């Protein structure tokens, strides 16, 4: 019953391969082509929301002059005009594709405007899109027309207790809406009463991070217009900071109202040529003016001019087109997580069918899907590596995906070697779990877990990070697979104890006697019971029951053996990873072991596996049961260490 990929592929023919390839491309294209949906869950914002509280403090409230980055023109509309504009035609007519691929410097990182917009919108409203609009459209609208957003409920409040407390300041109906949707408007947040309450709540350590999240959301909204550092540094200063277009001509501010005639007199920032500075500034002003005055053709002209002018400012340091293109594409496919979820889920299901014996032939498509999933996983990891310029294992998002990837590669090798479907089952479960977590958690928790590509902290900027973290996260994936096998073992054993072999055979005989349907399977492992003789045949029920019992024991033994293979690797990898971490710590901080929560719970996990290894000898009769149960315990301790410690305890590994 061995499996040979080449033979299977040959047998499957081109049709099946083409089908699978088409499926991959289709999924990629679908997710990439839906701009609104591509950002993730979509929030609905009621544009006609009316504030229930009076206007807030004018100094800190939105709409303060510094929010709008565009210098006033004499023909600039009044605020009321901006708020009441009908934007339908503008939304339809604006072409942002060229703008999305331009580069911005934000938080010391170079990224595309598309990435910047997604991150900003996510920070503000916990989702990646509002009303199904492109994130860049929303971000620019907030930057150029903040007045239009002042009274709209889009700032996300993650913590339910805060929603409840804020609800006490408004009408019951509005309180219900805040509780359900979790969104409020900038005007609401700027109200002194609300601010006072938030400061009061923030002083409680339990909710301080949640108040901080609201503060960051508000601050992000208020400063969107000031963050547009899209002009690369001058050729004379290639390591300098990127600048906002409006700063290219420093004395432009004095010419408000009469920009064009006075551009001749404007002097550019040091290092930039006058022509470049004027071209970029004019393009930007066109975009901003077109945007605020609802003039789509002028805005599009500005976008077109910016797309041409900006890369030409300093072509040597401007990120190459291919990289920018891939980055935008990578954003649109949810960093590859959704496709990964799909392929791992299919392979997981097929492996489960094959491993339980219900339909052993399902292993062939299962392994094809699993291989494809791992290849896609590798592709997306590689893309991230290329985009980030470093091995992507720096934060929770990257370490979860990296861990699953290494685990799945190990699982794939084991599956090809052992051909028992169990390794495929366990590791496709790990891949599925990791991809699902990375895809879902940001939307469920409303906070980033590191999907944004960012620089490495100085203290982590060493090869030791990759040695230590790679080995440790590999062990985490193996622990996850061991957990899966332990779980399958326990459920199977529970099922077997609920349906004794004699009873199964009795029922089959009963069915066969009354001419009932010849069921292929009477529970997990039942497929083995049918055997070559079919129902009845020349064997007595007792013989068949004994055979079934033996087959069941064989299945449990295979599960246990598979588990112990994975578990031993996890044990060894985890121990080695801990030691690498200790050596790094001693080298860099003069102390190999600091009893940091991450360290101690990694040690506890390792001790759990040490106990398993020894319990197998102390209690040979129940060793498989012990192994299964303790695999689950080890996984829970590991998960607490990986995720729980970050939330509940303070330590040195807050980045992990």
């Amino acid at each position: 019953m061995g499996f040979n990929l080449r033979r299977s592929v040959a047998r499957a023919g081109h049709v099946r391969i083409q089908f699978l390839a088409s499926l991959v491309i289709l999924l990629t294209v679908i997710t990439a082509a839906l701009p609104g949906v591509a950002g993730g869950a979509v929030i609905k914002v009621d544009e006609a929301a009316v504030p229930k509280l009076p206007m807030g403090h004018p100094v800190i409230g939105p709409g303060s002059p510094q929010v709008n980055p565009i210098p006033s023109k004499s023909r600039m509309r009044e605020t009321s005009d901006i708020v009441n504009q009908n934007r339908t035609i503008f939304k339809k007519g604006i072409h942002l594709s060229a703008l999305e691929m331009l580069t911005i410097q934000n938080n010391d990182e170079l990224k595309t405007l598309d990435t910047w917009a997604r991150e900003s919108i996510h920070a503000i409203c916990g989702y990646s899109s509002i009303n199904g609009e492109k994130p860049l459209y929303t971000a620019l609208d907030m930057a150029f027309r903040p007045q239009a957003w002042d009274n709209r409920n889009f700032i996300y409040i993650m913590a339910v207790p805060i929603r409840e407390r804020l609800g006490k300041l408004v009408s019951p109906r509005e309180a219900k809406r805040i509780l359900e949707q979790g969104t409020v408007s900038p005007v609401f947040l700027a109200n002194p009463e609300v601010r006072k309450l938030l400061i009061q709540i923030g002083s409680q350590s339990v909710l301080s991070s949640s108040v901080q999240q609201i503060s960051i959301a508000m601050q992000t909204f208020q400063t969107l217009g000031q963050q547009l550092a899209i002009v690369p540094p001058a050729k004379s200063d290639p390591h300098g900071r990127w600048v906002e277009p409006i700063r290219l001509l420093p004395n432009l501010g004095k010419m408000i109202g009469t920009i064009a005639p006075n551009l001749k007199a404007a002097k550019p920032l040091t290092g930039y040529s006058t022509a470049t500075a004027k071209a970029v500034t004019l393009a930007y002003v066109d975009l901003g003016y077109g945007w605020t005055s609802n003039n789509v053709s002028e805005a599009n002209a500005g976008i077109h001019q910016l797309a041409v002018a900006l890369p030409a400012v300093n072509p040597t340091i401007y990120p190459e087109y291919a990289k920018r293109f891939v980055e935008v594409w990578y954003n649109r496919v949810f960093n590859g997580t959704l496709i990964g979820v799909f392929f791992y889920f299919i392979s997981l299901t097929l492996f489960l069918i094959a491993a339980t014996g219900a339909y052993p032939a399902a292993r062939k498509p299962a392994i094809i899907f699993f291989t494809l999933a791992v290849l896609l996983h590798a592709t997306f990891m590689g893309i991230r590596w290329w985009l980030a310029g470093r091995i992507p294992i720096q934060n929770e998002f990257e370490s979860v995906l990296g861990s699953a990837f290494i685990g799945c590669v190990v699982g794939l090798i084991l599956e090809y070697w052992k051909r028992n479907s169990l390794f495929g089952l366990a590791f496709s479960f790990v891949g599925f779990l990791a991809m699902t977590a990375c895809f879902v958690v940001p939307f469920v928790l409303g906070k980033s877990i590191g999907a944004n590509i960012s620089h490495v902290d100085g203290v982590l900027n060493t090869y030791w990070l990759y040695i230590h973290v790679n080995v440790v996260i590999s062990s985490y994936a193996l622990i996850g697979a061991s957990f899966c096998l332990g779980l399958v073992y326990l459920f199977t054993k529970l099922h077997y104890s609920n349906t004794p072999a004699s009873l199964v055979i009795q029922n089959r005989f009963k069915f066969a006697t009354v001419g009932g349907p010849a069921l292929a399977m009477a529970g997990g492992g039942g497929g083995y019971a049918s055997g070559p003789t079919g129902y009845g045949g020349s064997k007595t029920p007792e013989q068949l029951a004994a055979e079934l019992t033996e087959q069941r024991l064989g299945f449990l033994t295979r599960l246990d053996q598979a588990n112990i293979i994975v578990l031993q690797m996890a044990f060894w990898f985890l121990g080695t990873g801990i030691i690498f971490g200790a050596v790094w710590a001693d080298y860099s901080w003069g102390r190999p072991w600091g009893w940091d929560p991450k360290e101690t719970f990694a040690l506890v996990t390792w001790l759990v596996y040490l106990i398993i290894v020894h319990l197998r000898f102390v209690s040979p009769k129940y060793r498989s049961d012990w192994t299964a149960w303790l695999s689950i315990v080890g996984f829970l301790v590991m998960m607490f260490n990986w995720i729980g410690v970050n939330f509940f305890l303070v330590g040195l590994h807050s980045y992990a």
Partner: protein
Amino acid sequence: MTVTNPDSNCAIPESSDAENLNSDANLAPSHTANIGSTSKVPTGSSAKLAGSAPPQWAIERFFNRLGQYPAAIGSALDRLAARRGPIGRIVWFFSSVQLGLVWLFLTATYIAIGSGMPWVRSAFDVTSMEFFDAFPMVILMLLLITTLTVVTLRRIRLSLYKLGVWTVHTGIITLVIGCFFYFGMKHEGMVRIFLNQKVNHYYDSSVRALYIVNPQNKRHVMVGLPQLPIFKKRSPGDTPLNIPIPAKDLSRLNPAWVHAHVAIVGYYPYSEIAPTPFSRPVNHAPHNPAIAVNLSAGGVSSGAQWLLGKLPAGRVMDRGSPFGIEYLYHPSARRQRDITTSFHGTNAIIVNVPKDHVRRVYIIKPNTPIVVKGTPYTLLPIAKITMPLRSPGYLGATSQCYMINVTRTDAGGLFKFQRVALFRYPTRTVDFILKHGKRELIPNKIDHQLHIRYLDAARDQFWVVEHKNGTFTLVHRAAGGKVSVQPMKLGSNAPAVVQGMPVQFSLQSDADMRFRPELIPPADRRPKVENTMGKCVLELQLTRPDRRPESIYLQYQQFGLSGDLPPAKVRMGNGQTADFIFSQLERPLPVTLKLMACKELFYSGGENFPRDFISKVRMTNDKTGQNRIAVIHLNHPAQADGLHLFQARFGHDPATGSPFTVLGVGNTHGFYAMLVGVIMVILGIGYAFYIKPILLNIKKKQLAAYAARLQKSSTHTNAPV
């Protein structure tokens, strides 16, 4: 034995069985049963029958011979275990694998509780390091390695096939012993070095200390406080502490202080010293005279604002408002005269040369020289600046200053210097001279015959003056230099006009401001030693024969005598004061460190996220005088005579902007024993899981072939002729 499943096509699962790490644990003692030796391989039965030994590799024979020595110890332990009596019972007790598992379980539980439940550490008042170094952990480790040793010697015979488990067990024992050494001798701390500064000590991270300084002779003593609580509050009211400061330490600073009795009587974790107003004493002067003023303008009131007369930064309010307010407690007659001097201009100086009986007021402008007639001085005002003060006790204080170049032409020569005259704190006025091409600071002024007081009238200034007779006056210098003076009373209003807007001053109350520890709310606390140490207060009680006991509160600071907070000044009698500082214990460095240069590196184009901190340090061995330069940066430490120096923090002095680096310091005794231990554990596990099964498979095939040959040979021999 592992080769019990010959039908399995899986090489690894058998090994798992791991190897039998202790597979024979419940069997007879290993050295008698010869468990683990190849002679137990079942396929060798025919060979035994034939009377010849199965083939053995040289390495197998080597380990079998080597195994005889521990086996002999194992036999001795067997004999001991067989005896009746306590020794036999003890050996028997420690021979159980189950017991080892119990120790492992208890160890895991202890670690999980200690790490996952910080409140437990807090309840026992220990740091994480102390918790894991406490006697339960030590006892558990001793029990574990005892059990491990006895079980290994009695139950697992050393052979090629048991090499893995032997390596792992020996590694664990080495690791535990290394840990005892390492953590028993561990010292670590921090040292902060400003640019071009030299230091030869560091501050221990775990032991705190009290520093007492005699400012007159600059001597100081350090009293280590290892017995100080960490998380538990101790206060004289309920649970007093009593840690007396030895009288000999005080008399070493000043023999007259021998009569003073100083004791630590309280400790307040999670606390900061905060001012608390008390009624002013009737019979003697307040310690910290304070007044509360209220400002109202256009119907808006500021509420009571406390001004502290003896705290330079606390007596001034001039940020964020269109005018400045200062509270002067018992100012000198000259200061009163200065602030009430009217003039017409935005910047003025009062030049006073007592020797020549000259006192004049000049309106100054940048780069407009002033010849002070009747004196040898010519003044050239340069510029007005706002400067933060770094003098001890002036933390947080800033003042407007005027830089004035002074030329003195008497005594047949020419003497030039620059005077920086301070508006708020005239006594801190300093001089600079050019010496060897460098601008050198003369803090106590180089020319004491010339007095320059700078008066800033660029905006409105108010002074609330408290006179020695207990009365108050409000001095108002409007922008432009015109002065008006009016009396003030507690509870009454004093009207003034600032830039055309009427303002009401009211003196709401006066008080003696005491500094008392204020607890951080429990919800904001984390029982983590760093947080506690950074926010705690020590209470001292000073008793002198002639005075009633006095409480002194000291806020913790990290870097001892070179810390950021001003020391607590305590009156010790006879008009003398002592400075008290609560900080970490100072330990000597084996070398003197001088910070030659330091730099923060950012990612290209960035300025928010540092990618590295680099400190270039010169290390001088004080004994040999040898110098060497070390470049320390993140993940690139340096060694200094057995101490590890690593880059911990980096920053700038908020007052002067001078950069500093903070280096971590630690010793590493016993590290290599720990390293050897963990390497043995990892290699042993790898061997047991992955090498041994391969060896066993090869051996199994070899023995099967050998048995087949024997059988063939036996059949051939017994064949009928």
